[in-house]
């Protein structure tokens, strides 16, 4: 691959990050609200703060967060900080930094989201491929239908329903938390089982609704590919159905599907905001949700930016991986 292309893709990546940071920086600052004051309001309102001179405290915090400088200066400083992956301090969990907050919640999110995304991607892709494959047995092809119907169910609602029916009513699975109360994480089998038990419902809430999307895109792709002459010719060659399915059909249809994967991450994270909260999981979603409630803007922006960067990075990586998968692109 030539250097120019690499450079262009990297430039694109930088542009995405820049655009996201700029939006995230300016939008909230267009409103006349003052996050630090509001934050102290949250503390003061329960009477928790004694009648101290809150204003002084606020002024001192403003300075600490650099909010007393002119907007443009703040902006340059902010861009510089982002370059160093430094999103500043969390307002509500001071003296934790945003990076700490993200680092602490990330493992949970990666654990949950990545696994569910991969499961729903794999499941959806296979079901979608099968649904579009005329030679598959009818019952197998129709297994995709319920998932397609479930695409209309937002993960939040799915989570609420699962929690109600399986958690409250049937009492089959724990109602929340990342693992049982009082257990400390260890590298043991029993901890793993306990952990998994707690992840099933949140995972299902995310998976059930999203499989359908993959089914649909794969089905559409599959139908297109199926009409391709090379699939027909493969059949003329007398290949077995399995081999055609795998080498000629699945493999070709998969390529565009993979692009969707990076983009899906954005949607999935958003779903996680509510689902993690619903089940009391301490992931990025919960961190974001809590930050929204506490108006902890450095954390909000940090997380939004972090996710954007992650997606952009994934997309950029895919651009480099793509040619390895598709020789046609390699040629150009």
């Amino acid at each position: 691959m030539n250097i120019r292309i690499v450079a262009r893709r990297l430039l694109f990546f930088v542009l995405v990050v820049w655009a996201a940071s700029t939006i995230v920086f300016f939008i909230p600052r267009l409103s006349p609200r003052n996050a630090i004051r509001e934050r102290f309001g949250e503390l003061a309102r329960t009477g928790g703060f004694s009648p101290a001179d809150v204003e002084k405290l606020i002024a001192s915090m403003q300075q600490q967060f650099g909010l007393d400088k002119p907007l443009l200066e703040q902006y340059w400083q902010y861009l510089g900080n982002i370059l160093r992956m430094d999103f500043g301090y969390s307002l509500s969990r001071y003296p934790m930094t945003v990076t700490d907050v993200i680092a602490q919640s990330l493992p949970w999110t990666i654990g949950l989201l990545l696994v569910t995304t991969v499961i729903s991607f794999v499941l959806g892709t296979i079901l979608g491929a099968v649904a579009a494959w005329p030679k598959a047995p009818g019952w197998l092809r129709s297994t995709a239908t319920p998932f397609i119907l479930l695409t209309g169910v937002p993960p939040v609602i799915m989570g609420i329903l699962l929690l109600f029916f399986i958690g409250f009513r049937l009492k089959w699975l724990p109602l929340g938390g990342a693992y049982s109360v009082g257990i400390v994480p260890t590298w043991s089998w029993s901890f793993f089982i306990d952990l998994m038990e707690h992840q099933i419902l949140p995972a299902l809430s995310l998976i059930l609704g999203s499989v359908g999307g993959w089914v649909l895109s794969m089905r559409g792709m599959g139908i297109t590919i199926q009409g391709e002459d090379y699939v027909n010719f493969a059949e003329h060659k007398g290949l077995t159905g399995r081999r055609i399915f795998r080498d000629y059909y699945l493999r070709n249809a998969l390529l565009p599907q993979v692009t969707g994967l990076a983009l899906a991450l954005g949607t999935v994270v958003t779903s996680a905001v509510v689902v993690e909260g619903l089940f009391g999981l301490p992931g990025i979603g919960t961190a974001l949700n809590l930050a929204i409630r506490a108006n902890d803007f450095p954390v909000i922006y940090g997380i939004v930016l972090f996710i954007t960067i992650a997606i952009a990075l994934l997309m950029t990586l895919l651009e480099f991986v793509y040619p390895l998968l598709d020789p046609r692109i390699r040629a150009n």
Partner: protein
Amino acid sequence: MTLRYLRRNKGLAIGIAIILALALFTIIGLLVIDPKKAYPLSAALKQPPSLKYPFGTDFFGRDLLAAMVVGMWQTAFIGLLAGGIGTAVGVVLGFLAAYFGGWVDGTIRTICQILTPIPVLLIQVVVAGSLDKRDVTIVTMAMIVAMLAWMGPTLVIRAQVLTMKERQFVAVAKLSGVSDLGIIFKEILPNLLPFIAAAFVGQVFGAVFASFYLAVLGLGPLREPLLGNIIWAAQSQGAFFNGWWWWPLEPAFAMILILGALALVNMGLDELANPRVRRTE
């Protein structure tokens, strides 16, 4: 012809049927029901579904039947407004980019591509969160949702216009002395109607979903009986635990119906717009 097509495209048919049924429910409801009943303290409290209150009432004394009617209407309003704006902006930009090419195209395309990886819902949350709460109304809600929703349609329409533009009937129209505008509106646009319709339905789906999401996070216009708001209120009052199951379940199922129907229609329109998909049936 259309009917025969609908019989084959079952998803589209079912989707349209559900939407029509919901629309009917809403329209008849708005005619028959006093919309005031959709607001707190207008009915007995916490009543399970009964003859008097077919859908029950909630903790705050809303008649949930009225709330569902008004909420459905508001949800539809947000969806149509935001979807309409997103699609309209997308169509205009898509046409501009594809038809005039050059730097216009370069700029529009680059902006779209740069904005695409940014998780829209999160940005919407940031925007909704930094708005003054008093400014959050049904309309601002639609605007927030529409704000970052035009990139998808823009890219789709652009791609379609680009292929359309290369189609020979455009060349022939030029030879027939048709102007640029004539070509855009009379030759290309009509052929893109299925795509525009599909984009529109997709946008409406996205808008309904996003507004629902914002409401569930407590960022919606609070007093309004938006479906997301009702679920949010039920959640924060511990409705399930207190045995008021009908309160969250009704808006949840309404939401599922709306989104499901939109998904089906979208799928069906895809099939219509993309004859390759049609080929299997």
